[in-house]
């Protein structure tokens, strides 16, 4: 899922205020609600952005509690709802949740691995008013896909991508790219073409959760990226008017950080399976978070008044070099979670920025990835799969 909002800058008949680009509105509204319905998941992707300790999160919100969250967020102006997880299809009440959300006026997006889907469900979701489905793939080849997914899902995913289209949706595929699959970018795009996909997102792995844990094995090398980018651009040209390809450049190789969440507490609200409200889906791991829960507080109280949501809002919290930087309204100083993971302090400038005094940490991470990549297979660190057993072991639960 992209978090950059609209690609259109000025459209005819628009009043200029477009979602994701209204950082300068004084009234902040949670326009985007990401509902992580469950951390249950039949796959075990080592690049998963879910928190490492997901196995510890047990008491899931009930159907009524989710509907109550939807109502409150909608009343505050939310229009986009992402139904994600874990695997959202693992929730037995998924159709009811879709229906309620749609009746409330949400634009409903289902973000799924396709496992748990079948053709009749795709049609039932359509009937319930689901607006959009995105199916994620691990790679273009059965073997690598199944290896990365930690299960045998490839053929089923192919079938489900077709079923989504047959139910009247555009076919939207998401491939999370990293060192182990980025060299197959042409095969990935050929697969998408052969499936007659409408949109393909080549999403670079963001280093949160399990992906961070596996970073040395996932971080692509510069030459891989150069090649992948050239190929992606060639396909973009060739497929113009046919299939739209989004190619997201990994921020570790950039000079400026991403405008994470379009600013902290600005337009995004994540609610995790147990009702914790977060300004971004990775923020649970930051130190000093109070982790307000929708079971105890209204969304309004959480959004407007909680320490968590106010902590990095606006520009006052910023350290140098961001504080006096003329680009701060563009990138908001980057990602707080990345700042924490790399420097130990979430209030620092995102080290991806070349102006950050910590930028060398990113360069060192790239170097470590390169060293790992050069090792013979039997000496390389193994990929750690996202599953409850590993979660408990690693987090000492």
């Amino acid at each position, binding site marked *: 899922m992209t978090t950059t909002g*609209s690609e259109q800058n000025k459209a005819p008949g628009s*009043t200029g205020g477009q*979602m994701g680009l209204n950082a300068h509105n004084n009234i902040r509204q949670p326009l985007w609600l990401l509902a992580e319905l469950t951390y249950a998941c039949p796959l075990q992707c080592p690049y998963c952005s879910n928190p490492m300790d997901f196995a510890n999160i047990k008491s899931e919100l009930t159907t009524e509690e989710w509907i109550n969250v939807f109502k409150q967020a909608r009343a505050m102006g939310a229009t986009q709802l992402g139904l994600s997880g874990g695997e959202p299809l693992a929730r037995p009440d998924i159709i009811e949740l879709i229906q309620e959300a749609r009746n409330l006026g949400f634009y409903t997006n289902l973000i799924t691995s396709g496992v748990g889907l079948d053709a009749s469900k795709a049609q039932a979701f359509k009937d319930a008013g689901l607006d959009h489905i995105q199916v994620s793939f691990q790679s273009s080849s059965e073997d690598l896909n199944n290896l990365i997914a930690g299960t045998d899902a490839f053929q089923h995913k192919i079938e489900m991508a077709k079923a989504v289209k047959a139910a009247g949706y*555009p076919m939207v595929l998401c491939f999370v790219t990293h060192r182990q699959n980025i060299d197959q970018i042409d095969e990935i795009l050929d697969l998408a073409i052969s499936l007659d996909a409408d949109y393909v997102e080549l999403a670079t792995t963001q280093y949160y959760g399990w992906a961070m844990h596996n970073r040395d094995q996932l971080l692509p090398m510069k030459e891989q990226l150069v090649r992948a980018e050239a190929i992606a651009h060639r396909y973009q040209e060739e497929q113009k008017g046919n299939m739209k390809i989004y190619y997201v450049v990994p921020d570790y190789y950039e000079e400026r950080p991403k405008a994470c969440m379009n600013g902290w507490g600005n337009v995004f609200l994540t609610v995790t399976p147990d009702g914790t409200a977060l300004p971004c889906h990775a923020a649970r791991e930051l130190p000093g978070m109070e982790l307000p829960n929708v079971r105890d507080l209204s969304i309004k109280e959480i959004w407007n008044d909680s320490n968590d949501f106010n902590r990095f809002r606006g520009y006052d919290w910023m350290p140098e070099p961001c504080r006096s930087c003329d680009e701060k309204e563009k990138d908001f100083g980057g990602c707080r979670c990345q700042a924490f993971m790399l420097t130990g302090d979430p209030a620092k400038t995102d080290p991806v920025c070349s102006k950050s005094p910590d930028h060398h940490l990113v360069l060192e991470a790239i170097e470590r990835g390169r060293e790992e990549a050069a090792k013979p297979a039997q000496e390389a660190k193994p990929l750690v799969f996202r599953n409850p057993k590993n979660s408990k072991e690693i987090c000492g639960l």
Partner: protein
Amino acid sequence: MTERKFNADSTPVLALGYRFQWEPAQDCHVLLYPEGMVKLNGPAAEILKRISEKKQTVGELIAELKAAFNGADLDDDVYQFLEEAHDNDWIRAE
């Protein structure tokens, strides 16, 4: 602008996955699409509302708008908007 996509006999329809609705929190009509929203001004909303409500040709659409707005001369504005909306992938011509 490139070649024209609409004439009096073409039927504009919302692009797949686009939804038109009134947004109380924004106090305006909006177009919703995957991961985004465009707030619409009055004239754009009048046109898109009719497109989303029923299938009709541009000719019929213009006639309806004229009836609603005291016979105003709005043909050029409607065509211009349709072309631009098409360039933005909001609508298709059938």
